[in-house]
Every structure is written in C-alpha cells, then in structure tokens.
C-alpha cells in the first residue's frame, strides 16, 4: 500500500505526456494578420503531433519542482575536480541577454554587427595575451571541439609539408578521455605515455616513443593529477625536436593564469574551456565554448571564422569575419557560441590584469589548504604540493573498512556538498579529485574539511551509513545496470 504522501511525491515526478489534458496550452500566439494563404496538399502534411497539452501554470510548477531536485553552485559547495565549478557573476547573465547580443542574426552583414565583432576581436586579443600565443579562433563550441580543431591543425600542418607518415599522437595515461577520442576522430593512432612515480611525464618513455611518425603530443598542464609537470620544458623540446606539434589541453588553465604562459613554454596550440576558467553557468552540462589559441606555426590553419581588425580610409576601425588562408574549416554552422563568449569576456573585463593573476593565486592556495588538512585522513598518491586541485585516494578506507570512493562521495551528499570527481584520473585507485576553485571562502573549505574528516571516522564506526548513502535525497542510489541493460530512453504510451 502506498500512502497518500508517497503517491503525491510520485505524482510530482509524472512526465509531461502523463500530465497532458486535451485542450490545454501553455503559450499564446497571435491571430494571423495577413490574408489567408492556401495550405499545401494534405499528403505533405503531418497527421498528428503527439505532444503534451499542459497549461502555463502547470508547466511552471512542474519544472520549478523538478529544478529543486538538483544540487547547483548557487546552492551547494561543488568541488568537482577538473570542472572548475566557480561562482558565476550574475551581471554576466544580464549582459549576455541584452537584445543587442541575444537578438542579432548570425548572417547579418559585418557592417551591422560591429559591436559583436569588436567584442569577439577583443576577447581574441585577451586570450592571446593570457596564454602567450599569436592567434585565436573562437569558433569551437566546447572544450572537446577545441581539441578537435587543434589536432586538425596539427594534421593540416604535417599534410602541408608532405609528412603524411606522421600518424601518431602521444597522450599521457592521466589524460581526459576526450584527448584519445579526439586524436582518433582526426584519424591518428593514439600512443599512451606513462606517468613517472612523481606524476610527471616519463621522459624515458617519451624519448622512446618519438620518431618520424610523430604527429604531436596532447598534454594537460597542470596534469589531471593537479600537478605541474616539472619536466615540461624537456617534454616540449623532445616533441618539437622530433618534428611534432605540442598541444596543450587548457582544462586546467585556472592554475596558470598570470603565472605562466603556455606560449612561452613552446606550446603550438591550446584550447581554453571558457566555461571553466572564465565562467559560464554550466547549465546542467553546457553550453560551453572552446576557443583555440595558436602559436606561429599553426596560424594559417585556424578554424574559420576569425575576427580581423583593420582601418578604413578615414581611420575608422572595421571588424570583419575572415577565413584563415589554409583553414581547417568550419566547426559549426556559424561563428561559435557567441553568448558564451560575451559572458567570458565580461568576466575577463571585471577581473582585469590584477584580478586574472589572483585567480591562480587563490585557487592554488585553496587546493593546498585542503591537501594539508586532509592528508592523513585520505591517502595522497603523490605526496607533493598541488596546483588548483588535489587528488586523494580512498584506497586506505577500502582496504581497512570496505569503503569505496563512491561511498565517500555519496555520503558527502548527505552533508549538502556536491561530491568530488570520482575514479578519475584512471591511474589513481579509488580516486577523489577535489577542486575548490578560487571563489570559495576559508569558512567553506573548513566546513568541507570537517565533513571529510567526519566521513573518514564514520567509515570506521558506521560503514553502513556510507554504503547506503545518500539518505535524504529524492532518490536513493540508482540501478544503473538496469538502465543500461534495458534502455528506456523516452516516454511511451503504455506507461
């Protein structure tokens, strides 16, 4: 028997199609103000559209209630490693929704969108300055899309020189899965590079792997272990000497802002996850933006378009969309995720020169503070100071109390904290990757540390509390095997 209370809580989860009542509509449309135009023959038209019929009020209440089942940055500390979940200034949302940005059509002539193009040009310049590179294309629509653009440029560079035998891309074993997936999409063979005992690139293995077939290296700096590779200059030298392109995955750019420029280290190309480093409200998983920023060797190959600035005869500055001479092509139908670019540029303007350098300062201190205060409670696979994020391991808890990283993560939810990234990087057993970001206060970090210590204690005293966590969420742990074995991917009428 389900109680009334239980039934009501299930009703709140009813899908739109189950809420549908014939004749209801949640939006109004005007009557036609033009003379009636004859419709095409019936045979071309759709019989029915099986869509829900719900009122505006009901739709608002349904989605508002659903929204409250989420954790979010505005409600919870969200130290999700590798995702840089910093607080997003509200003014940037307001700016991005200005009609002069939100309503302009992507195919308007350049002369009618000078404000938008100037904004893009200025953002290109800022990104070039921050990374020490020479050119920038804002076209890629996400970090992985930026990776794809970057590796396409490496491919074009080698093809232009007749070096089609260069078919291997080196990728450290700590890399995000997007790196090998990207290299494969570009038609390259992936060679995995091991990390050494300190979490740096294994130089012996690198030297052994480079040769005439080397296309390039994809490397994340700092690495996904939250560590700055102290061999990096040597790594870059070895790859460049062998004729390879050095690609920097900018996922962890937050740690480097104002501290070091990848261009100065000899990188040929990098992407920046604007939605991480330069804020974007993340939206439940996108949109983002993944501009590529390149050094001299790859300038001709940038994806199209790039915003160009010139002066007309009267000395007025004119901004135009241009295709680089040997471009690798179009990443999407238009010019990139402009709305995301507006937010990122507004954020950069707010921070200015000093603010940008403070980001890495505060992000690195915050992560090291957590490292110092949780060391001893959780295993630290690489016992050295970290950059903007710290990777712990729950292997001690697993061994001694049968508590996994997953259990720790789920128990954090009971304390109102979003779990860290789990089981990544793959080379760390029972990994828990914590990235506090620079926007969190010492008080928030202290609260997190207290909770993490309490959970380590609970692992000893009351392991079931962790195994069964979370306890007070709208759903307890899910049967993910069932979801994958019998995929049920849309509403169906027999429900």
């Amino acid at each position: 028997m389900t109680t009334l209370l239980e039934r009501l809580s299930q009703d709140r989860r009813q899908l739109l199609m189950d809420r549908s009542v014939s004749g209801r509509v949640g939006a109004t449309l005007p009557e036609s103000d033009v003379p009636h135009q004859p419709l095409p023959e019936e045979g071309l038209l759709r019989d029915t559209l099986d869509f829900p019929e719900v009122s505006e009020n009901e739709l608002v209440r349904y989605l508002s209630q659903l929204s409250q089942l989420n954790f979010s940055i505005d409600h919870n500390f969200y130290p999700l490693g590798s995702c840089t979940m910093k607080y997003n200034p509200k003014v940037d949302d307001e700016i991005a929704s200005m009609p002069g940005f939100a309503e302009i059509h992507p195919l308007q002539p350049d002369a009618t969108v000078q404000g938008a193009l100037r904004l893009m040009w200025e953002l290109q310049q800022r990104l070039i300055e921050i990374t020490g590179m020479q050119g920038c294309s804002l076209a890629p629509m996400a970090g992985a899309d930026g990776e794809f653009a970057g590796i396409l440029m490496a491919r074009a560079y080698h093809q232009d020189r007749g070096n089609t035998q260069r078919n291997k891309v080196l990728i450290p074993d700590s890399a995000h899965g997007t790196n090998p997936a990207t290299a494969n999409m570009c038609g390259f063979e992936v060679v995995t590079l091991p990390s050494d005992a300190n979490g740096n690139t294994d130089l012996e293995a690198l030297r052994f792997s480079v040769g005439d077939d080397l296309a390039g290296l994809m490397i994340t700096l700092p690495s996904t272990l939250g560590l700055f590779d102290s061999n990096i200059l040597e790594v870059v030298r070895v790859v460049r000497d062998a004729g390879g392109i050095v690609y920097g995955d900018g996922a962890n750019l937050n740690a480097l802002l104002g501290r070091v420029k990848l261009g100065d280290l000899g990188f040929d190309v990098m992407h920046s996850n604007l939605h991480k480093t330069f804020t974007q409200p993340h939206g439940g998983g996108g949109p983002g933006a993944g501009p590529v920023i390149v050094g001299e060797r790859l300038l001709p190959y940038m994806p199209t378009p790039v915003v160009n600035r010139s002066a007309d005869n009267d000395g007025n500055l004119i901004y135009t969309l241009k295709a680089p001479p040997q471009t690798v092509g179009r990443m999407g139908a238009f010019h990139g995720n402009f709305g995301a670019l507006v937010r990122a540029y507004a954020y950069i303007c707010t921070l200015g020169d000093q603010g940008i350098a403070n980001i890495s300062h505060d992000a690195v201190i915050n992560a090291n503070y957590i490292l110092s205060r949780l060391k001893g409670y959780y295993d630290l696979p690489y016992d050295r100071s970290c950059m903007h994020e710290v990777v712990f391991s729950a292997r001690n808890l697993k061994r001694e109390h049968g508590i996994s990283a997953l259990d720790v993560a789920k128990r954090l939810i009971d304390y109102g904290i979003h779990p860290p990234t789990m089981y990544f990087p793959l080379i760390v057993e029972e990994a828990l990757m914590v990235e506090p970001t620079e926007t969190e206060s010492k008080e928030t970090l202290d609260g997190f540390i207290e909770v993490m210590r309490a959970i380590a204690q609970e692992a000893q005293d009351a392991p079931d509390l962790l195994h069964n966590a979370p306890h007070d969420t709208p759903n307890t742990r899910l049967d993910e095997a069932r979801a994958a074995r019998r995929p049920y991917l849309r509403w169906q009428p027999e429900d």
Partner: protein
Amino acid sequence: MTPENLKYSQEHEWVRMESDGVAVVGITEFAAESLGDVVFVELPAVGDALEQFEKMGEIESVKAVSDLYSPVSGTVSRRNDELLDAPELVNDSPYDSGWMLHVELSGDGELDKLMSHTEYQAMIEAQN
C-alpha cells in the same frame, strides 16, 4: 567454484568440449565478478571465423568495456542470443545459461595451449 572439466584461457574465457566435438565458450565467474554487472555483450555472428586468442567481441558493464578473446579457432555455429536481452545471465550463471558461443574447431592441438582448472585457479589466486 571453477568447474574442473573445462579448459581456461589467460583472458578468463572457458571452453567445454561437447561429445559431438563442438566447443562451448563463455567467460569465467572470476571475470564476470571483476567486471561487475554485465549490461551488454557483443558477439560474432553465426558463420564467423574465429582465431585463437584474437578479439571476438566486447563485454560491457555500467562503466567499463572489455574485449573478449576467443580461446579457440573455428567457426561460430551457435550464438547465445538470450544474452542480448538478458546480459545478466553472464553474472548469474557464467558456466551454464551465460554461455556465449558454440564453435566448430578448426585448429589442431589448440586445447593444449589452454589451462587446466588447477592452473587457472592458481593464476587467479596469484592475481588476487
């Protein structure tokens, strides 16, 4: 828990010889347990030729995917299509209803390259 009458490969596949000379192939309970909840199995089609120790398919759990390697050479004569709808059989009954293929052997002496039950048992204990 590991049946004594089977032969085993390094990659945790088992082979059972039927009286009609057909080899039945599956994965061991140890492999199924290490994978966790099996959610999908991709197997070769009936009629496909297999090479001993070469890739013959894939097996997926919720968050991992592993290659399956054929323990013998030969031609697939039957496939356990029940696994398409109920991949959990691999977890629930790895040596019985969780079988994967029937193979008509083409190679000679290949069974000698496989491990006995005692050898396999020793290998997984060493791995543990």
